[in-house]
């Protein structure tokens, strides 16, 4: 570079100021991991999420500073779950292992048999209307026990609202931790489950509930 250059030469070298894509991609990925750590440490994000492996498939867990706000099953599309959180909570959503650590540990302990109740705080902002009462009552159903849609309706003082109770349970944004899988049809049939009946059965079996085959 000691001799003078033609202008094509100069513009060609200037192109070289941009680093190669492959190397930049790795460096940018490392930089954004550091960024996420800083952000979590300074509470700048409104929602943190992570995908956790479990015996009933991957679970997307999302937390806010108030607590666990969403648990998504593997067959719920990630983009839909995150899109809903962006609309209803905040678009300031970041992936973070650290911020979801407590929830993931409790879920692990639940699945491996050491935990019969969750201590993690719950953020109920995705729960609206009658579902608030229904899911609050559902949280009181202990590990290994079941109730029915009708009983739950009676417990919230709306004995004729079994169907509305079923719908409210189906809209549970925080399954497993709010144990809507413990609610069965009168007579012992499984009823419904947003995560699919196979998962409901698996969770109940894990809790030692013997199911009546229909």
């Amino acid at each position, binding site marked *: 570079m000691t001799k003078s250059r033609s202008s094509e030469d100069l513009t060609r070298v*200037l192109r*070289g100021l941009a680093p190669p*894509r492959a*190397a930049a991609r790795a460096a*940018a990925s490392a930089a954004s991991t550091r960024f996420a750590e800083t952000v979590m440490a300074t509470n700048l994000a409104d929602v943190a999420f992570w995908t956790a492996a479990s015996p009933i498939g991957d679970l997307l867990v999302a937390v806010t500073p108030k607590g666990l706000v969403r648990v998504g099953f593997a067959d719920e599309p990630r983009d839909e779950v995150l899109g809903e959180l962006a609309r209803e909570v905040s678009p300031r959503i970041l992936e973070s292992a650290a911020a979801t650590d407590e929830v993931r540990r409790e879920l692990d302990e639940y699945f491996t048999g050491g935990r019969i109740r969750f201590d993690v705080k719950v953020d109920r902002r995705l729960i609206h209307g009658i579902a608030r009462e229904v899911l609050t009552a559902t949280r009181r159903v202990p590990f290994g026990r079941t109730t029915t849609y009708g009983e739950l309706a009676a417990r919230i003082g709306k004995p004729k609202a079994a169907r509305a109770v079923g719908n409210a349970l189906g809209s549970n944004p925080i399954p497993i931790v709010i144990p809507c899988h413990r609610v069965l049809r009168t007579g012992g049939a499984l009823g419904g489950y947003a995560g699919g009946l196979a998962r409901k059965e698996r969770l109940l079996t894990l809790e030692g509930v013997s199911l009546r085959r229909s």
Partner: protein
Amino acid sequence: MRQPGASAPIPPFQDFLAANRTPVYRFLVAAVGPGDADDCFQETFVSALKAYPRVTEAERLDRWVLTIASRKALDHHRARNRQPIPTQDALDLADAPVHQPADGDAPLWAAVAALPPRQRLAVVHRHAFDRSYAEIAGLMGCTEQTARANVSLGVRALREMMA
């Protein structure tokens, strides 16, 4: 339901970050040098995150974040220029993780680092990333004419420095 013609919903920040981190990083390496790109990257995305819920044009997020990055690069150069120590981009290259230009490129980096900040940025946008003058004007918050002038002054100065 969204109104017809209303802009698309803002994507989750994580997806925005994943889509834009590499272009922003590449721009910043060229704009402030490999040694300082990371700091400017952090500042760019922290600013973006703070302002994110107020974003209205979800389709233009790539340009929006590059505008922020351009501003951070300028702030960075201004802060440096207030310090007595000269810019060290060429030396920073020695332990830069990303970009290991051949030894022959060191004079180019030194020359680019010696440009006035706005000229350096304009030259980088134009010649390292092939952006149009209209785009550069948008990213740097100036007129197209000013963008053009900054590019040509910068290129002329580089040619003189490297002659």
